[in-house]
């Protein structure tokens, strides 16, 4: 049996460790919001749902752990009669069921508004389905390729106009890759043989990025998704210039090849080499 100072010491140390545990749990999470720089309509809803869940879950965790501490605290109690307590079970079960139902309804409402289902339709969340910009995003070990509607393409960085609905068609050239720009789209997997379509509409200019989240081999740690949001005019200039550059590069490659073939044909004695198409 513990002496009186021993009991007090146990009590103090229990309370202190509980306080530390709760503070340690609460402080990092309280200081953080899920996406502080949300830049697309649905992401705000995710933030709100995250806060709701955080508060509900925080209360649940603190409540359960306080109950455990109280139950485990060494002391003499008045022991209740050995009743069956069936009524209490039912009440607690109904209460928890109500909580679960409320959480489910809340989460469903927010999820459908947040366009977080990557295969969802573009009608949700007030996105304009008529003039959306469709971009094909191809994951490969370990970078992303973006194909714009005018047959130009970039690697690493996607450039899109502000205030325009963008539809990304995620595909993969090799293994599963994780597309992840938290401030704009959230996470979606690019799976070989499947196309996942996700939508976003950036409401301000800037550069947004995130890390790939599906282990895809040894260069996985450096695989990043990056989106640069610019004004529509800048976007037009960018893709036009890109197309021109790509055309020029292709032309020069073709020219060089033909030059080499011609030279080879001249060197070959009596030989005749047709230029490749």
């Amino acid at each position, binding site marked *: 049996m513990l002496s009186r100072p021993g009991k007090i010491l146990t009590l103090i140390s229990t309370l202190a460790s509980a306080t530390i545990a709760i503070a340690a749990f609460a402080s990092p999470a309280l200081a953080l919001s899920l996406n502080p720089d949300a830049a697309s309509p649905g992401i705000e809803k995710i933030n709100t749902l995250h806060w709701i*869940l955080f508060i509900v879950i925080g209360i649940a965790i603190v409540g359960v752990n306080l109950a455990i501490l109280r*139950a485990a605290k060494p002391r003499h109690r008045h022991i*209740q009669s050995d009743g069956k*307590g069936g009524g209490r079970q039912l009440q607690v079960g109904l209460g928890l069921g109500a909580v679960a139902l409320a959480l489910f309804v809340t989460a469903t409402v927010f999820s459908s508004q947040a366009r*977080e289902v990557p295969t*969802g339709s573009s009608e949700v969340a007030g996105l304009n389905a008529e003039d959306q910009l469709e971009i094909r995003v191809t994951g490969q070990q370990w970078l992303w390729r973006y194909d714009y509607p005018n047959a130009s393409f970039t690697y690493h960085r996607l450039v899109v106009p502000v205030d325009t609905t963008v539809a990304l068609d995620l595909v993969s050239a*090799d293994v599963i890759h994780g597309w992840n720009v938290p401030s704009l789209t959230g*996470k979606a997997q690019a799976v070989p043989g499947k196309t996942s379509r996700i939508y976003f509409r950036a409401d301000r200019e800037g550069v947004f990025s995130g890390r790939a*989240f599906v282990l895809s081999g040894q260069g996985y740690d450096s695989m990043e998704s990056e989106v640069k949001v610019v004004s529509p005019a800048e976007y037009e200039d960018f893709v036009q210039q890109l197309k021109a550059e790509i055309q020029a590069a292709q032309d020069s490659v073709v020219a060089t090849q033909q030059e080499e073939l011609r030279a080879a044909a001249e060197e070959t004695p009596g030989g005749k080499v047709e230029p490749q198409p």
Partner: protein
Amino acid sequence: MSSFPTAMPPTRPEVATGDSPDRPGWARLATSPDHKVISLILISAAFGSVFLAALELVLVRLQLAVPENVFLSAVTFDRLLSVYGATAIFLFVLPLCIGLLYYVTPLQIGSRGTALPRLGQTGMWLFILGGFLLYSSFLFTPPEAGINPFPPLSQHIFTSNNGVDVWIASTGLVTLGILLLAIDLLVTVRNMRAPGMAWRRAPIFVWSAAIVSWQIVIIAPIFLAALTMLMIDRQLDGGFFTGGVGGAPLLWQHLSYIFFTGVYMAVAVTTLGAISEIVQTITRRELPGRSAVIGSLVAIAVIGTLAWTQNMLTTPIPSGFKYYAMLMSIALIVPFGLIFYNLISAVSNSDFHMRAPLRFAMGALSLASIGLAVEVSQSTIAVGSQLQQTYDAWAATHFTLIGFGLFGGFAAISYWYPKMTGRMLDEDRSRISFWVMLGGTLIALVPLFGAGVEGQVTDSYRFFADENVGLFNLIATVGTFILFVGIVLAIGNLVRSRSEGAASPPDPWRGSSLEWLALSPPEPHNFDVLPDVRSTQPMRDIRESLVRREAGREAPAGERQPVA
């Protein structure tokens, strides 16, 4: 204790094992079909594995202690991570749960052995083989395709060395072994219960055994099928999981997550069953909501396993799957809440001495409550798809698995340790190891919630200074060290108490289920006499009838006469 019937006449003599005392100890250990020997090998292997898993976790966390660390190379990190995952799931929690159930359940139902002892023995050896195979891969190339090796990455064109083949073979052998043990367990609890032990009188842990073995009988073949398909893809140029040519990479995710989610729930059901037994014994009362607890255990196994797509919220599957997974996951609040309510209020309303089993049980409930609550936010589509594959999800999973698997496992081991070894576990060392482990777990995992909300992704061998997660990771690394020390202390206590612990009587806790009728450790045939079960607490009935017999009173007609 003096009134305990240690020398009852063997009214129903039986040879359970055919064991011969002439053979050397190791040969008897290797060939004994006795469920107690098999289980002790499984449990010892599980605690050896948790040491290895903790060591690997420490190395992984050391690499992640500071941004852009160069302690491990990318491939070494991937290999350690893959082996860590396989060790924690296949070599620690699965054999621990099955080992505990396989040891205790036949005793609790008053059986002299298991129904199919050679099947169980085969299962145990398949498990041992799988474990050795996984670690023998350190001689050539360990698996490197991640904790769950998604095809196409795990296919031959992208990972051409033998690491993934080893992963497939070793997890396959372990799963097959566990499946055989589960079949034996299921047949035993269905057919070999003592006379009078209807299901309504069976202990909660026996219900756990029935639920878990049914669950494994259903999910293990699914996983074995997936492994076979991956093996065919790798070795015979099959196309089950190849995208674009008629295969489906997502099929692997469905099949493997059915198994992993099922295992997660099996761990919860096993430990909650064990904790219920501990709470009933230490508070000396039957749980008032016994039927609610049993119903909730069934609900957890069914609903939890059906929620497998909550791991696939970011994949291009029809959104109906995702809403369904969210519904199932949130519905789990009800059974888990009912069990937590029952256990905590039972402890709260009683007077008891705090002993090691209850302390670990309370720690398990505390840690698992954090993990399970955060899992709820992981399973909502909007938030969950943002948090998946971050350290927030990692921390939630680890809170639940460390809570149920490690703390729940130590609770169950501390409770049945006197029965298994005939010695008491050292209480002081147990208390120290408990607090070190609890502190280590909280320090190791709570900061990772912050890192996950900041967006740090798992499985990456390094992170960068501009991610603002350096402090979280540093604290987590320190905590993992403390947790490792705690695990070493706790395992050391298990080993030392075996030779140094005080001798234990057959019934040190005054339990109410039948395993306490057997000697400590039990004879190979478990019981000399088989009791006639008339209530949910047969040992209490036996004690009462002994008290009556000593007092010289005849039992009134129609009263309980438990010993046949």
